[in-house]
């Protein structure tokens, strides 16, 4: 994958593969594999928010876990801050872990109910031996709580005394404790009420501005992703089908899957909602145990061609589609936009 950027990316993921071996019986004989992540490539630039969207089970979270090296990789390369972290041993990963942190989806199971807030937020400091003396430790906790909009005198309470939104703020404070450069947000607002979602999203954006953070933001809610992301990658069944700038993606989705996904966002206006054209996908998501040949989306694609079931399209710059001369950086994995196949196909559709 070639992106023309001068700056070294903060995180570079190249052809990442995570396959789960399915075993059977006492001897754990392998009987097949689930290709949860099957050749995912993307880059995160310093200070940006990269949204990763897709249906449940498409491999978004597995990608995040793999980037954190919390999930054994089957193949691929992960480069973080210019270093290849793919082969690092656990003890070599420790300094790297300081630089990348995670915010979790479920604000209830992500905080230990038997620890005080102070100890939860301070745990990263403790683990990395940064809690040298009591006073500076307390001061740092108070500072962190203040940053995420919590009152420092709440620090000796327990998680059950907080609401979902407050708990998520605690989780964010914990992620900030080690001053990381990358924060992976795995559906950080999907468990919250809509009004709280906006607060937490805005908090994340404020923190990004203040601290120069880079986010890998995973979500299935497109309006949330649209609100926070600079660039968006769309995943389907273990692969990225399209990467584009936020405005570009929402204005001119290229991959048929992205188009279908965007057209499934309900409009707030009921009359518009009733009359707008909708491009629905037929069928179910195939099992990742037996993914379709060629392009994984071809059995459900409204614009399927012969080549789609044979060749898997590469994630490439848009060259031949309906917007061939657009100077954006969007990448799409679809034969429609491949110079040798898809030319002119789209015009017959409209």
């Amino acid at each position, binding site marked *: 994958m070639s992106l023309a950027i001068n700056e070294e990316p903060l995180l570079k993921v190249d052809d990442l593969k995570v396959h789960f071996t399915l075993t059977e019986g006492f001897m754990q004989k392998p009987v097949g594999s689930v290709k949860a992540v099957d050749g995912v490539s993307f880059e995160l630039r310093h200070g940006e928010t990269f949204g990763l969207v897709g249906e449940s089970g498409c491999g978004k979270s597995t990608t995040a876990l793999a980037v954190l090296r919390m999930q054994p990789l089957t193949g691929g390369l992960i480069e973080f801050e210019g270093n290849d972290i793919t082969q690092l041993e656990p003890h070599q990963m420790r300094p790297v872990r300081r630089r990348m942190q995670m915010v979790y989806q479920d604000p209830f199971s992500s905080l*230990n109910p*038997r620890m005080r807030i102070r100890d939860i937020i301070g745990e990263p400091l403790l683990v990395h031996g940064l809690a040298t003396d009591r006073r500076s430790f307390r001061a740092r906790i108070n500072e962190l709580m203040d940053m995420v909009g919590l009152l420092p005198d709440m620090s000796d309470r327990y998680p059950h005394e907080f609401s979902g939104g407050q708990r998520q703020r605690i989780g964010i404070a914990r992620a900030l404790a080690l001053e990381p450069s990358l924060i992976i947000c795995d559906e950080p607002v999907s468990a919250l009420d809509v009004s709280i979602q906006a607060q937490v999203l805005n908090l994340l954006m404020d923190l990004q501005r203040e601290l120069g953070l880079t986010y890998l933001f995973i979500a299935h809610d497109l309006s949330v992703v649209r609100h926070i992301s600079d660039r968006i990658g769309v995943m389907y069944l273990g692969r990225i089908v399209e990467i584009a700038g936020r405005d570009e993606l929402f204005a001119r989705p290229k991959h048929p899957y992205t188009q279908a996904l965007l057209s499934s966002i309900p409009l707030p206006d009921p009359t518009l909602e009733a009359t707008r054209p909708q491009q629905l996908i037929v069928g179910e998501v195939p099992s990742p145990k037996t993914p379709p040949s060629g392009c994984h989306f071809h059995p459900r694609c409204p614009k399927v061609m012969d080549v789609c079931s044979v060749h898997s399209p590469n994630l490439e710059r848009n060259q031949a589609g309906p917007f061939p001369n657009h100077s954006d950086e969007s990448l799409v994995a679809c034969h429609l936009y491949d110079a040798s196949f898809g030319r002119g196909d789209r015009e017959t559709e409209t």
Partner: protein
Amino acid sequence: MSELIVEAVLPAVRKRSAFLAFNMRLIREKPLGAVGGVVFLLFMVCGIFANFLAPFEMNHTDLTQRLLAPSLAFPFGTDHLGRDVLSRVLIGAQISMIVSFLAAGIATVISIVVGVISGYFGGKPDMVIQRGVDAWMTFPDLVLLIVIVSIVGPGIPQIVVVLGLLYGIAGSRIVRGAVVSVKENMYTHASLSIGAPTFHVMRKHILPNIMPVVIVLFTTRIGAVILAEAGLSFLGLGVPPPAPTWGSMLSGTGRTYMYLGPWLALAPGLCITAVVYAVNIYGDALRDLLDPRMRGSQ
């Protein structure tokens, strides 16, 4: 009234020690549990000072005073050899408490170690350990006990170790289940992704969250050990006579002379019931009080 006293005393107590404050909470929030604790403490004291408290020497026999009903001289009556039942119950408390606490303690430690290792690491180690536990559990408890005790011979240390091992391995399955469910919580994941060592995760996240299970396991084991010891004594494989244990008093002389002297079974039976029940309600109260989610909610 007692509320008032508690409220008046509380601020001073809080300064003095967390231990006292905890006990005040126990009394205020879990009175039944506090009663359990007191009863249990009472038996402990009886056990420790049994030699001073017992009005008669435990093996002092007086054949002219056989099978006497409870009276002022013999509050719990006398047995078929004219021994004072009260004295024997007191000494029995000592032996039964030692056996049950040591054995239940050993059992709980074994359960935690085996269960946490098996549940935390999962995969191959888990499978190997759990198949071993399966194999161990296919033997009926009593058969295993009889075999081991008949090999090493009866005696308090043997019984403690054997019962500890037996219940420890069986209980590890329960601990493992709790560990597996706690491990799935994202806070363990969060801790690991920070770079925390395995031991830190076990100590800070796994152990505190399996404590409710461990406390219940320990308190139920106390009762189970007392009963198992009784069963062994009944078979002549328990603590060797003439040393009295509640189990042997209940199942030996108590059963033989059930119709002539029902008090023989009554005294040790009531003691077993009282201790087991007291430990259980005390354990339940501890479990609730140690859970921060229960704090301040009355």
